[in-house]
């Protein structure tokens, strides 16, 4: 009989205990798996969002996040200078603003307005109607709106949006409904051209940009493009997606990384404690049996393998159940955290990666080995004759 078959029989003799052990390992394993997904989930998800725009470099005036620091002044000349760099494929200036609109309930509502050029890459995704076109000299400037704004205001292609103003009315014609990569759930957003932006915010300075979106030439790479920008314009701050993510990892996203680390450590410790306890008690109750097996010729090595197999069955069984259970739990936890205001609705906290699964399995293998260590020592050091005598007397 192989060690695995022997371990199976041993566990089958105590089905309630084995089942509870498996349940415990499955639950804490699921928690561990989730924490592994959480540890990098925001970074992976945010990378997807950043990459979905089609721009791999961001340029700002200072190290502050876009919209939170000084703007890039003389934006037109800066954009032209950057467009002449052979490493860059596209440079798009972007402006951010918040305006008020009169809602249907007579109250005013805020709408985030993005001023940019007509779409080059993935700045937004067209859902309905036509994309933003260059503004004609006469008539109302064009505007694309997100679904929330369209639904709240009853807008569709051709509708007129009137920004609340005590001065001259500022009106825009909706050309289409779009989805912005970074739009938050319930957030009203609109996109206009740079000319349209100055129309929406007459007091805004004309030749400024909050952010420059840059796409490197195919095959050149973001790092080379960043170096080229830094050489050409050392007064600007250029960041590749990796640099942006590293910064977020160190600051804005660090809380969840630390929470996941703490909970993963607790979950691992808990799983270890559970299996160690079950195996130790199991061995203690079977001391006579182990001694008898040794007397029958079972080597210490064989006994060690039997116990390792028992540990592997408990941890492995629980660990396998932990994966679907963890995925299910991750969905629940993710849906809770995604209710946070101002978060991009496409951002996820728990993201499955093969890496997370590999680490989960590695943790479980380690737990199985460490958990079996003490019972193995107990069984291996067992004095055969003395134990058999004690068992027969008792």
């Amino acid at each position, binding site marked *: 009989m192989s060690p695995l078959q022997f371990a199976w029989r041993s566990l089958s003799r105590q089905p*309630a205990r084995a089942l509870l052990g498996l349940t415990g390992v499955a639950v804490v394993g699921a928690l561990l798996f989730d924490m592994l997904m959480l540890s990098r989930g925001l970074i992976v998800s945010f990378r997807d969002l950043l990459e979905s725009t089609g721009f791999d470099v961001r340029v700002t005036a200072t190290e502050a996040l876009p919209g939170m620091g000084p703007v890039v002044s003389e934006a037109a000349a800066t954009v032209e200078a950057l467009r002449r760099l052979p490493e860059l494929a596209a440079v798009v200036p972007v402006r951010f603003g*918040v305006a*008020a609109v*009169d809602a249907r309930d007579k109250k005013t509502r805020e709408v985030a307005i993005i001023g940019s050029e007509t779409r080059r890459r993935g700045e937004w995704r067209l859902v309905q109607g036509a994309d933003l076109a260059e503004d004609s000299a006469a008539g109302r400037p064009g505007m694309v709106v997100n679904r929330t704004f369209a639904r709240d205001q009853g807008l569709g292609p051709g509708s007129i949006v009137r920004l609340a103003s005590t001065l001259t009315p500022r009106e825009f014609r909706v050309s289409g409904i779009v989805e912005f990569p970074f739009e938050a759930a319930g957030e009203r957003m609109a996109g206009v051209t740079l000319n349209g932006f100055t129309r929406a915010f007459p007091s805004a300075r004309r030749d400024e940009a909050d952010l420059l979106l840059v796409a490197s030439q195919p095959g050149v790479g973001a790092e080379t493009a960043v170096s080229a920008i830094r050489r050409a314009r050392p007064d600007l701050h250029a960041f590749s997606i990796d640099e942006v993510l590293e910064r977020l990892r160190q600051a804005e996203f660090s809380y969840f990384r630390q929470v996941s680390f703490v909970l993963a450590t607790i979950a691992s410790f808990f799983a270890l404690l*559970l299996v160690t306890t*079950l195996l130790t008690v199991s061995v203690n109750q079977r001391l006579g049996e182990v001694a008898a097996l040794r007397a029958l010729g079972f080597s210490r090595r064989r006994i060690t393998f039997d116990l390792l197999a028992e540990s592997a069955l408990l941890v492995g069984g629980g660990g396998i159940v932990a994966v679907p259970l963890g995925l299910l739990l991750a969905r629940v936890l993710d849906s809770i955290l995604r209710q946070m205001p101002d978060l991009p609705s496409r951002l996820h906290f728990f993201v499955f990666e093969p890496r997370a699964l590999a680490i989960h399995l590695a943790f479980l293998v380690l737990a199985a080995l460490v958990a079996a260590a003490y019972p193995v020592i107990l069984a291996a050091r067992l004095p055969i004759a003395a134990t058999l005598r004690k068992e027969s007397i008792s």
Partner: protein
Amino acid sequence: MSSRRGLLLLLAFVVTAPRAAVAKAPDAAGGPTPEILVSRGLMRERGLSVGQVVMLSADARGAGARPFRIAGIYEPTPDPSRFTAKRLEARMHLPDLLALTADPGEAGAVDAVGAINIALKDPADASAFARELGARAPAVSVVRAAAGDDAHFVIIERFHVAISVVTMIGSTAFLLALMVIRADERREIAGLLRLLGLRRRRILLQALLEGLCIAAAGAVFGVLFAAVTQGAVNAFFQWRYDTTLAFLRVTPAIAARCVALALPLGVTAGLLASWTLLRRPVLDLLRR
């Protein structure tokens, strides 16, 4: 919009004036150098000191920079929704801020603000006041400042509760396994007690009391452990994020909730484990 942005811009860019130039630093109007307060984080990050004159500008390249004298250091009010961000901030008089950030070509810019904080004589009038102001000035967004119900914390609390539930399910399984083992270890004793005439109910009562004691001891230990370690946890996160926020606080309500959950769980686990054993025939318990 520009005023709000201007404030942020201003705080993001600080250039310290050379020490030698401090005494000579003139105000643009020739008057005394205006004063500012800087946050503790900014002071440490830039190596500033009280009395030093710094040049501030709303422009990334430092155009139009003006001198300000640091009058003091302040600790920003901890903001749980931004605790991961460095608080590199300064406070100055509103006219100084407007003069620094206003576009000279923009009419009325020196008389524009991003927000106005209002304290009502009777806070209960807040909703009515907001309605009335909203009706009189439709272009103004009136928001009631509410403390303690920030959506971020409601969500974080839900997340923590969900994690607690999962942990509790795991620990319940662990506890049950331990109780089953314990009951199994005393199988023969239970059989002997039954043979001696003790009723199932009597033995179950003993198991119940035993479970209660174990659960109470575990819960008290857990609460004490949390109370003792909360200082270390807070110290770590306060150091990590350079904040005075308390991340963990074991309140009597939390301790009571913990004990109230642990006791029934422990008792139920003990009873379940004992019942699975005691329902067997006496001879079976004695392995006969």
